[in-house]
């Protein structure tokens, strides 16, 4: 073990003096986590407790229009914004994102409700509203209009039957009991927040980014002849690999601790939600170790495949971006087409991300994350074995 201690100590000393690498490894993912968690907060919030804002222009002021307005007001997720003015002014306000939607009930809506040519309620969405949200609000508005129409139709039918009060016996709210929906996230009625998704994603991305400084220092040491010198001193290749692997594993663990702390403490201070680490610390620790081992071994493999520092930077940089893209860091896997999802699920980044989400979102324990951790560890062992083989070949010219 003698040389190994000195190899590890030397590596930590060199890392401490390499501010660029430390900035890349710690500051970059912190900034990513903060920006992505806060920037996508609204988007993720729309998947959790939905708050959709709308302005209402009732030009009809009939019992039917008031009933429609009442149905919208009764939706917990909808928040009416009181804006004064005519239609043009309200449209300008919605265009300026003061509300997400404008609902205009035209004059004559109630009177023409049961006629062949009804007066349609108009819905306008703000420019920033995503198509899915427009569809959601449109469906809710149609449901509210359907209730108004149904009430009016039944009233008309009851009157023609000579019993006007019969329509009142119908409880339209009873349809609410026909469908019950819930999220399986944490067994509660809420969905994961932006921070729950973004912290593990960017943490894994940062952990794999360690391949850049690692492969660069390895290539430099090789080209400076220090490895040849150490081989001449009888230091075996596996110790040289281990001497690089162990300190960088330590750096990865420090990165993980730092990024998780950012999610738990810093993001909420800046207005985001706090990261919930789940309730299986052993499973979380296993995932951090497994991802770290895979990432460092991946870096060592690249370092021993490439010939120059420039190649190392390009291979690791582009390779990590591709892994991040395919593995669901930048774009969640579920929004990709099936064939791309299938490819993405073959990447160690996806195994790591799903493992973290198992702990954070699905409240998984050791048993749940073990298969993904095993895949990552197997990937790390294979990469390390290949790295040793390439190292041996390269040092023999």
């Amino acid at each position, binding site marked *: 073990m*003698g040389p190994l201690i*000195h190899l590890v100590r030397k590596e930590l000393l*060199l890392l401490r003096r390499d501010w660029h690498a430390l900035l890349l490894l710690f500051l970059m993912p912190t900034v990513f986590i903060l920006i992505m968690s806060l920037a996508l907060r609204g988007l993720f919030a729309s998947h959790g407790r939905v708050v959709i804002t709308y302005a209402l222009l009732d030009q009809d002021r009939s019992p039917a229009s008031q009933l429609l307005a009442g149905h919208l007001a009764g939706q917990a997720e909808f928040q009416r914004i009181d804006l004064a003015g005519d239609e043009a002014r309200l449209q300008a306000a919605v265009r300026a994102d003061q509300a997400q939607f404008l609902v205009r009930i035209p004059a004559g809506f109630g009177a023409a409700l049961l006629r062949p040519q009804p007066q349609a309620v108009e819905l306008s969405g703000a420019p920033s509203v995503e198509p899915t949200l427009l569809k959601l609000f449109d469906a809710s508005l149609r449901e509210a209009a359907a209730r108004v129409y149904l009430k009016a139709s039944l009233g008309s039918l009851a009157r023609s039957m000579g019993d006007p009060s019969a329509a009142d016996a119908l409880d339209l709210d009873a349809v609410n009991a026909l469908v019950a929906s819930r999220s399986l996230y944490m067994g509660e009625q809420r969905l994961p927040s932006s921070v729950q998704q973004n912290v593990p994603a960017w943490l894994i991305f940062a952990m794999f980014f360690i391949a850049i400084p690692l492969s660069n220092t390895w290539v430099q040491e090789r080209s*400076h002849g*220090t490895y040849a010198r*150490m081989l*001449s*001193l*009888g230091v075996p290749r596996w110790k040289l690999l281990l001497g690089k692997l162990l300190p960088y594993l330590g750096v990865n663990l420090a990165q993980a601790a730092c990024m998780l702390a950012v999610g738990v403490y810093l993001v909420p201070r800046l207005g985001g939600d706090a990261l919930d680490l789940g309730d299986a610390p052993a499973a979380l620790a296993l995932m951090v170790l497994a991802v770290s081992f895979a990432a460092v071994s991946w870096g060592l493999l690249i370092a021993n495949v490439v010939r120059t520092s420039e190649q190392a930077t390009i291979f690791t940089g582009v390779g990590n971006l591709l892994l991040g893209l395919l593995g669901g860091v930048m774009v969640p896997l579920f929004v990709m087409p099936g064939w791309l999802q299938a490819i993405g699920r073959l990447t160690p980044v996806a195994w790591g991300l799903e493992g973290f989400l198992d702990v954070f979102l699905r409240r998984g324990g050791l048993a749940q994350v073990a298969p993904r951790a095993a895949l990552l560890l197997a990937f790390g062992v294979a990469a390390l074995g290949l790295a040793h083989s390439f190292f041996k070949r390269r040092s023999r010219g």
Partner: protein
Amino acid sequence: MIQAHNLSYQYASGGARALDALSLRVPQGSLYGLLGPNGSGKTTFLSLLAGVLPCPQGRLSVDGHDLGRAPAKAQAVSALVPQDLAFYPRLSVQENVDFFAGVMGYAGADARGRVDEALRLAALGHLRGQRAERCSGGLKRRLNIAIGLLNRPRLLLLDEPTVGIDPQSRRFILQSVQEIHAAGTTVVYTSHYMEEVQALCDTIGILDRGRLLAQGALKELLKAPRGGRKPKDLEGLFLELTHRALRD
């Protein structure tokens, strides 16, 4: 000290053999100058001697230890000072020497004694705290040599130790090599500077295309007529044997 018999080596990347049935003998206590044009096989031979490359064909031994069968024993008595500055620029002079002493397995007072001795021999004692990257070219070469002295080798392999340094530093390094040799260490010295080898070495070997073209004391080498005439100096002999055409 060194026995090479029918030694051949070919790199995995292909090309001609770097060493082609090379046989030579370096006696204990000699200061052996190994000359050859670029790509002649000098560095390959030193790498084989240092155990960095395996010995696939032929036999090679250092101090009686066969490098094919017991490389660790041969490595224990030798030290390679590579042509590259094989240390860490971001570490200080002291940290570099401490690190390599630790990697070699020295600890405590023994390590401190060896580090002090190596730094004294390389005249680097006053620069212990200086980052290696801030040292001049000559200081870097001396640090490279100091690291090679840590295991008090019986065989010191110096691969072009005076490349790219000022005359003062070169003079100091040549004096140091003479002192190390005078203390009983066998030295194999490769260089492209003929006057260095001429002044320093008691035995000279000229290598080209992996084969030994000539070997012996300078006087003997110059005495023997080549192509009907006697070369006037080592450079003349070298060019006579390896021809004047460019190699790179």
